[in-house]
């Protein structure tokens, strides 16, 4: 069975996936370093180690992400949009809308029946609506991201937060805490503000069921539930693999398709 690999170099984290045929046999997620080629090398080695294969066994590999030009060892390069769409389809075969929220950006894509990307929108300029937003707020609330995610469930009256600008939202959070609002209500407000920014982006591409969420923020229950309410759609979180790996998974699958000549 053909072995392929995918490498997704992001500004915050980099991911690698090794597949044998249709099975994921090795994965890795590491924090990105200044030099994308070093990071790519490192994360790929980790994934290969986990898979128990040598690099020379890899028939083809595809790279994606912002640092992708610097990666020497890949056979081909594809856009993050295409890789995420592929990966999401593999992890959730009925996916027609993919929402990917990473550490520093947020993307929404709508797919056709075959998984081809029809339309996409990305916010990679502004922290609002990205993982960064949650990080900043969690810090002020003195919580881990995990804990922040769980707050929506226990909140009684979530506060309304400025959601357009992270800096101004920060000021809001501090204000609320000072006025005696509970951490749960403020935390839930943060998750809601996040969801509302993402919903705007998603609605821009036209939400069609099934909706799949990838990227690290998919692990935040509060945001996911708030987003479901706003979009009026159930959101499917990949179970076959960590949602953060979707890009790298997609890259590995594209690598196989190229090798088989179907792409």
């Amino acid at each position, binding site marked *: 069975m053909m072995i392929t690999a995918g490498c997704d170099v992001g500004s915050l984290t980099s991911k690698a996936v090794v597949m044998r045929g249709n099975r994921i046999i090795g994965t890795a997620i590491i924090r990105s370093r200044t030099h994308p080629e070093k990071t790519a090398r490192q994360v790929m080695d980790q994934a290969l180690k986990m898979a128990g294969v040598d690099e020379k066994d890899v028939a083809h590999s595809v790279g994606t992400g912002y640092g992708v030009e610097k990666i020497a060892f890949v056979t081909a390069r594809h856009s993050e949009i295409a890789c995420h769409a592929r990966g999401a389809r593999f992890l959730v075969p009925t996916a027609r809308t993919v929402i990917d929220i990473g550490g520093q950006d947020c993307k929404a894509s709508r797919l056709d029946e075959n998984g081809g990307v029809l339309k996409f929108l990305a916010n990679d300029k502004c922290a609002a609506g990205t993982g960064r937003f949650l990080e900043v707020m969690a810090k002020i609330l003195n919580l881990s991201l995990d804990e922040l995610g769980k707050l929506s469930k226990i909140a009684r009256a979530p506060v*309304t*937060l400025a*959601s*357009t*600008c992270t800096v*101004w939202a920060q000021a*809001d959070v501090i*204000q609320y805490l000072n006025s005696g609002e509970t951490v749960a209500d403020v935390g839930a407000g943060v998750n809601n503000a996040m969801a509302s920014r993402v919903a*705007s982006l998603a609605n821009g591409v036209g939400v069609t069921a099934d909706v799949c969420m990838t990227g690290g923020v998919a692990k935040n229950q509060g945001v996911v539930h708030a987003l479901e309410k706003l979009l009026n759609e159930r959101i499917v979180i990949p179970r076959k693999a960590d949602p953060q790996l979707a890009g790298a998974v997609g890259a590995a699958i594209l690598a196989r398709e190229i090798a088989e000549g179907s792409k």
Partner: protein
Amino acid sequence: MGKYLEEVVTAHEKGKKLCMTTFCQSPAIFWAMDVVPLLMEPMTVAGSLVRKGGANEFMDYCVEAGFTETSCSSQRGALGAYLAGLAEKPDFVVIDTPGICDTNANSFSFAAAYMKLPFYQLNYPPTLKDERAEKYHRDDYRNMIAFIEDQTGNKLDTARLAEVMTEMEKQDLLICEIQDLQRLVPSPVPVIYNFFIYGLRFTMGGRKEVTDMLEAMLAEAQKKAQEGKGAIFSGPEKARALFIYIDHYAINVPLWSLLDERGVTHLGGILDRFYQADAPYAGDDGYKISTDSLDAMIDSLAEANSRLPMVKQIRGPYDAPNMWLEEGLGLAKMYKADFCVYSGTPGCRNTWGMVKLMAADMEKAGYPTLVINADAFDDRVESWEQTRHRIEEFLEVRRLV
């Protein structure tokens, strides 16, 4: 407001046409031609004031429909509902903001193209009072009337128009009197009256209901003037604020409550100054309503329209004659303002293009000026709590109250 909304919702039932238009367009001509004017911005404000979450979902829907997110939220709030087909579909669009405000004009031309509606624009040159400009105002206004006649199949009824304009004249006088009283220190005009004045004028100007309300308001202001105690309910007047642009419309009108609470008189702003010849601040620039002939009526309407908020003073360079700086300084002086406030929206390309210059000039003239970075119609940009905090901080730091 209730009566106005009823008119809007029942227009088609009653066989009238519904015209999508903007707040700074005089509605008198529409009422006179039996057309119901559907004003986007007041509808957005209505949504902001009474719904939890305001009109935000509809603003977002505009983006979904292809509109830009950065466009002025004052139109987007109501526009979203119309683009989505959730409300009575307008029959045509008439606006007067080309030459004044791109983002406003663009919202309506987008709506017209999106919903495939007939569209007419009154277009303004960058000067107010020279002969070419005045001729342009008159030609353009007549062309608009021809358009409306074409759309409705009704000819402009001279008697009906005279009726509406006579009513408008009465209302103008009442407004001028109230605004004259406002010059007194302490001001006998309650903080919320400015909002009422422009709310009424924009939606139902020329109709009897407005005259009745204005009469009641004037009576109240006169009473307070005689008592000499000012119109702040919480206590004595401590400071006088000129809002050089618009107000802030978060839920439950908190801006006005805050002002009253802190003893700050609201001297009005750009939205409630209509430049009638009888207005204390108008000098030689005001318009006079004439009902002598059809031509005279149309001419005076054209003049009145060209002096509406924004239409008058942000059409040209801010420091040119009759424009924003001259007006701001004139009003601040006449009404004895202690400070000025700029409140607007991030969508206001026009004023954000030079508000720093304006604020610097007002400060130089001795008026502390607060520039608020919030969005008057969308509290997701900056929450009311934050905005409130900034206002209070400013009052404290500049030692105004």
